[in-house]
């Protein structure tokens, strides 16, 4: 599939928009605009990664929340699977944290390449840890 612009090397434009775009658009000196509804808020149905996250998060919470050790909770296969998706899970984790604080901190630290915005004196304070991560998410474009 042809790309509309080489500069957009990280994003493949869906076929319907490529077909509407004249092949020589770049020679015309015009701007060709299109709207990709998969990025629009009009359709609020969750994307596949978000569906996967919701399914795995629910399973993890149901099966481990009685644990005294968060380090044991994070050994659950569903938690590890969420981490295996990589950085793209960060927005969903932060959104979940916003709704109800939970033990996502080890996953976030792992996905943020061992970075943590939590002040050492706030370690263990779930409310402050949650606030620190949400603030970090907003500053870094991970959370709207």
């Amino acid at each position: 599939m042809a790309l509309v612009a080489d500069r957009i090397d990280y994003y493949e434009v869906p076929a319907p928009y490529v077909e509407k775009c004249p092949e020589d658009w770049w020679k015309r000196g015009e701007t060709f605009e299109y709207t990709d509804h998969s990025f629009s808020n009009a359709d609020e149905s969750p994307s596949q990664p978000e569906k996967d996250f919701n399914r795995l998060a629910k399973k993890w919470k149901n099966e481990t929340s009685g644990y005294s050790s968060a380090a044991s909770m994070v050994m659950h296969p569903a938690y590890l699977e969420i981490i295996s998706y990589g950085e793209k899970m960060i927005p969903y984790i932060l959104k979940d944290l916003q709704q109800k604080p939970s033990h996502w901190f080890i996953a976030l630290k792992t996905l943020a390449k061992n970075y943590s915005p939590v002040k050492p004196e706030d370690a263990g304070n779930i409310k402050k840890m949650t606030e620190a991560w949400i603030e970090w998410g907003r500053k870094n474009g991970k959370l709207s």
Partner: protein
Amino acid sequence: MSGAGKMASSPKRYLPKEREENFPYLTKKLYEVTDDESDNYNCIALAAGDKTRWWEPDASGVYYWPIFKREWTVDCLIEMFESLNFQKCRCSLKKRGFEKVTLYHDPVGCIEGISNFGMWHPEVLPNSPTHAAKQLPNGAWQSKLGGWEEIEHRTLKCLNGTDITGKRISYGKPIQILKRDLT
């Protein structure tokens, strides 16, 4: 702090059935819920007298832990409580002028993650710690069940349990009592 006073005045509350099922010795005559479910603190924090933080010696350093040594072992938990002026003792009975904490462990361990009664158990070495309970002035015990509710239970055995195959459900069994002089 909630506890014995709350038990006498307000109607008793219990765990949801699916949670209660994890504790075969936890019968309604022997316990009641004393605080709502919360991820804000865990059993170790409660036993140490802090309901504002989650205490855990996790290797990643995410959670609060007051001593340098960070290991999920009974010895490390004992060392931490000793840093708070607790000392080992053998008797779980209430003694005036002292507060007591009991550590639970998993005597069997688990060589692979398993699910029991809807609760998942990770692979753990035998004798790994599982829980801490704090004695109340009335001699009963208070426990925070992970991220679940906080309960008051009459006996330590209330949270014991292994199934017939030896695989752990609930919190295993008590392994160490610690006491602290309140005078």
